[in-house]
């Protein structure tokens, strides 16, 4: 079930109500049942995958402490799962990019829901148990819930054992939590339906039909993809955290105003935080710790390893490698120019420095995202070539507005400008909006405004029935 569908909303409402009414000791079993149903509803393979991989991890963890061979086996098993499913997904006919279960292309399909995410959780869990930092779970139920918990199974956030396990069977559901969860969920729904999905056609047009676009249009498309991705993924995260909160669970934040980062290192502290925390704790730090006597070289190697593995985790293919490579270059550059930039930032024009930084980072990230979103190396190279040749549009309406608005008619422009306006307005006032979304009090104005705007401007059907062949 995708998050912004009626059946899912009903599922959430029913689950929250029953969970609230159940006595504390039955809740985790109930949630497990709901989560497994949710996964099974998606497809059977996903259900089998989560059961099997959790079971293997569970049994390995019972004997893994201090047992290096078993530990490595456990890691390899979970890593293999990620690669196998990503690779399998990549070679299906019509490679379609789908980062979140809420996909960018109508036809994408994930084989095993959430496998990439809970495999990481399993690796974290085994690592903690192996080093004696965590006691292996006595009940398979807890590990299974840790992996299959439906608000976060689709696309995270990635939780560490110490962050999630203690919450099982100990969560209190108060009115404040219910309201905070609801406010947060509503925000996520808004971000997805009113902003991300409205920008999707423009991005689809530039990336998938943009062979002949001029540089400015291509650049705009890349910018819009970064924004769409942010609203889509952070919207999903808001919904996940909101639902979890209504069920009594506090999940990790994934985003902290990443588009306001003034350096790429800062960006990675604000974007997909749960994933980066995992990579930092289990790849970067262990590696750089071992090599720390090599000072900066160790950090360079750490960055390389972290992002190469992250690239593979996101998807098999040269485009993901190139995306990772961009960030490796950016971060290494920042590592070696840290003192210079730190000095610049202390000059009187701090605001200018920050704004310039934000602009540069946004461009750097958008550029790398061309690789991330392109279905193939050839289309990515074509886009980059377009970016640097014939930058200005020959005709503003035909070569800039029409491709982005997916049509040259007034109605298309109208819709497009509204989408831009909503995105820009939101980004400007995001701090305030977030405060409202995290409030423990029910706000009549916030709720009414969100719901009405969703009805007026939200995308309910993806309009694919109006995509036709016309001869």
């Amino acid at each position: 079930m995708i998050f912004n569908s009626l059946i899912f909303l009903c599922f959430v409402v029913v689950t929250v109500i029953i969970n609230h009414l159940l006595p504390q000791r039955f809740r985790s079993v109930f949630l497990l049942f709901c989560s497994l149903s949710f996964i099974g509803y998606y497809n059977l393979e996903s259900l089998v995958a989560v059961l099997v991989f959790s079971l293997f991890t569970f049994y390995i963890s019972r004997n893994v402490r201090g047992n290096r061979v078993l530990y490595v086996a456990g890691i390899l098993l979970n890593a293999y799962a990620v690669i196998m499913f990503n690779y399998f997904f990549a070679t299906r006919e019509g490679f379609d990019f789908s980062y979140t279960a809420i996909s960018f292309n109508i036809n994408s399909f994930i084989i095993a829901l959430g496998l990439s995410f809970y495999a990481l959780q399993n690796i974290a869990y085994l690592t903690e148990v192996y080093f004696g930092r965590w006691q292996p779970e006595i009940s398979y139920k807890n590990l299974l819930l840790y992996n299959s918990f439906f608000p976060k199974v689709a696309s995270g956030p990635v939780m560490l054992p110490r962050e999630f396990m203690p919450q099982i069977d100990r969560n209190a559901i108060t009115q404040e939590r219910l309201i905070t969860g609801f406010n947060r969920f509503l925000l996520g729904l808004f971000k997805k339906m009113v902003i991300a999905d409205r920008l999707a056609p423009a991005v689809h047009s530039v990336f998938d039909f943009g062979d002949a676009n001029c540089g400015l249009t291509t650049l705009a498309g890349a910018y819009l993809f970064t924004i769409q991705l942010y609203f889509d993924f952070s919207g999903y995260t808001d919904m996940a955290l909101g639902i979890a909160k209504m069920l009594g669970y506090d999940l990790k934040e994934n985003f902290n105003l990443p588009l306001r980062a003034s350096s790429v290192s800062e960006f990675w502290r604000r974007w997909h935080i749960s994933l980066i925390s995992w990579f930092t704790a289990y790849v970067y730090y262990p590696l750089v710790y071992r090599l720390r006597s090599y000072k900066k070289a160790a950090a360079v190697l750490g960055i390389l390893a972290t992002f190469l593995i992250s690239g593979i985790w996101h998807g098999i293919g040269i485009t993901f490698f190139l995306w990772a490579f961009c960030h490796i270059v950016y971060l290494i550059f920042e590592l070696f120019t840290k003192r210079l930039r730190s000095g610049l930032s202390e000059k009187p024009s701090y605001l200018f420095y920050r704004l310039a930084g934000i602009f540069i980072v946004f461009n750097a990230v958008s550029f790398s995202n061309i690789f991330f979103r392109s279905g193939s190396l050839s289309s990515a190279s074509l886009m980059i070539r377009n970016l640097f040749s014939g930058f200005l549009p020959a005709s503003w309406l035909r070569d800039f507005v029409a491709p982005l608005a997916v049509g040259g008619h007034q109605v298309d422009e109208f819709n497009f400008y509204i989408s831009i306006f909503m995105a820009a307005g939101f980004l400007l006032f995001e701090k305030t909006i977030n405060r409202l979304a995290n409030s423990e009090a029910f706000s009549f104005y916030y709720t009414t405004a969100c719901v009405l705007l969703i009805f007026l401007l939200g995308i309910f059907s993806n309009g694919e029935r109006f995509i036709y062949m016309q001869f």
Partner: protein
Amino acid sequence: MNTVKKITLSVAIILLVLAGLSRVYDFALRHNANLKAAYVQKAKIDAEILFHGPCEPLWMISPARLDSQTHVRSYNLALSHSDFADNYLHLYFYLKHNKTPKLMFLYVTPESMDANYNTFNTYRFAAFTGDPVVDSVLKDCDPAYARWTAFPFMKYAWYSSKINFDALQGLKHYMQHRTVPYYADGYEPPTQVVWDNHLEEFIQLYPHGYNFEWNKLREKYLCKTIALARQYGIEVVLYESPVLQEALQYQPNRQEILKRIKGIADAYGIEYVQFDKMKIAASRKYFMSTLNLNIEGSRIFTDSLGRYISGRLAAH
């Protein structure tokens, strides 16, 4: 105010606003003169001849040009990307409020019978739900949508990106007392004048040709459209404008589909007139794409059609 009261108030206000907005949209869309569904129900068009179908008639047949030859008033009821169900409802609206025309030319080509081409544009009828004919077609052609129309404003929210602009424009027309559409006789001149490469892309996708898939729902609504017209005593003529000959080799089952279309025409005792022998069909010079003539080609075709119609009217 305690939380429960706030929540109740919120839900109530939301439902109220949505219901109110729905009314506003109903009103606005019915006053948008550019929307044919609304225009034909308000204006007294009273044409003698109707042209109907999707883009091909819409972009090719200019009543202004044609009428000077036939000396009879005609109206172009066609709409872009529309299938027969779409056509059916527009004809229904037209006939409810206008004098019955003598003649109706309905464009039918093999693509029309294949669900991959054109579609039922649900959003065009959102302001007219509640009418049993409209509702039954909606249920047939967009059942998911039909289920949702019960919820306030949802019939507009569902396809809001197609509707919001039209609603605003409708309000504008109302305030300006504008009752005539931009294209008063229904004809829209094509926006392109040059070849659009669709054929090249088509050949790449289907190097061995494309077999049309006969769709039952399309057939159903073709028949209903013919039957509706006949019910009003209109003489129906199915027709096909010139098709680029070069493209015919990529349509292996074309003749088979044409035969079936002819079969339907025969069943209703009406003609299926094909303008496929015209000289212009041989050259890309007169086409924008396989089925769509460009301005020059359209002029030639319209003149030909005009002669045909004049001859037909004289004979009767």
